[in-house]
């Protein structure tokens, strides 16, 4: 038996992120459910870029949201909950990858693991985004992680540095290298 069989829920779909995160941090599971639904697609896309297969993405994102629930009381800026979720997801994703292949760094990966996904995806994206996608896949681990956290997660240099336990100058370096690699690839430069 659970406590779901109750009256009409208030409609939280128009509530801003900040309100939802504040309520969830005080135990409102419905607010958390709304955050879960709202941000699952982008968090999945983010994690998929890191782990490479859908099955692993499902598991990692579940764990990430559960971790987020447990750590909600540590969220300092409720309005920035989306970026905070990406941070947690990135942590879980890289921990997962490390477990999977403890000795190697991931310098690029083979999406043949999910071939059914590729034709659909390429039909939607134009050639430029395809080039970007391929470029992201070939980045070294650390560069890709910095890049995703910065450009998709909107984290500051300092937050990324804390997250990855690196000096800010190294983070800048990774971002510059990633940006250069991606741009060369997308522009089709030799």
């Amino acid at each position, binding site marked *: 038996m659970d406590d779901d069989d*109750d*009256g009409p829920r208030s409609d939280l779909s128009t509530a801003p992120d900040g309100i939802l995160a504040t309520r969830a941090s005080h135990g409102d599971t419905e607010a958390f459910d709304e955050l879960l639904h709202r941000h699952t697609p982008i968090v999945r896309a983010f994690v998929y870029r890191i782990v490479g297969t859908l099955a692993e993405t499902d598991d990692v994102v579940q764990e990430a949201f559960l971790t987020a629930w447990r750590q909600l009381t540590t969220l300092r800026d409720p309005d920035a909950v989306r970026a905070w979720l990406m941070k947690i997801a990135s942590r879980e994703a890289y921990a997962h990858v490390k477990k999977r292949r403890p000795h190697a760094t991931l310098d690029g990966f083979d999406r043949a693991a999910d071939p059914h996904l590729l034709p659909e995806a390429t039909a939607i994206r134009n050639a430029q985004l395809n080039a970007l996608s391929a470029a992201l896949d070939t980045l070294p681990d650390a560069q890709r992680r910095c890049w995703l956290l910065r450009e998709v997660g909107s984290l500051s240099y300092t937050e990324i540095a804390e997250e990855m336990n690196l000096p800010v100058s190294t983070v800048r370096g990774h971002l510059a290298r990633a940006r250069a690699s991606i741009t060369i690839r997308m522009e089709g430069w030799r």
Partner: protein
Amino acid sequence: MIDPERRADAAAPDITAVPGVVAVHDPRPLIARAVRAGADAIGSREPVAEVIVSDAGATLATAISVSSRTAAPDVARAVADLLLTTNPAAERVSVQVRRIALG
């Protein structure tokens, strides 16, 4: 040792039939705090129909969700009364309201 007949008695009351009760829950693990009795009297028991009965039926504990249409204290008291009626030898009855659902 659990007396099987005592456990069967505790299964008898239908708590969900009490007006205002929306759901009944396994009262662990919060129940030790609510009961304020020795935790070992309750800790290792399995609930029957979501009511925990200690050895010899001395303590009963349950947790419920209620509808807002009936005042939660009234519902809690009614459930306690039901448990007292069906378990007259009880020394302690604990009822905890975990959710008040608007509707």
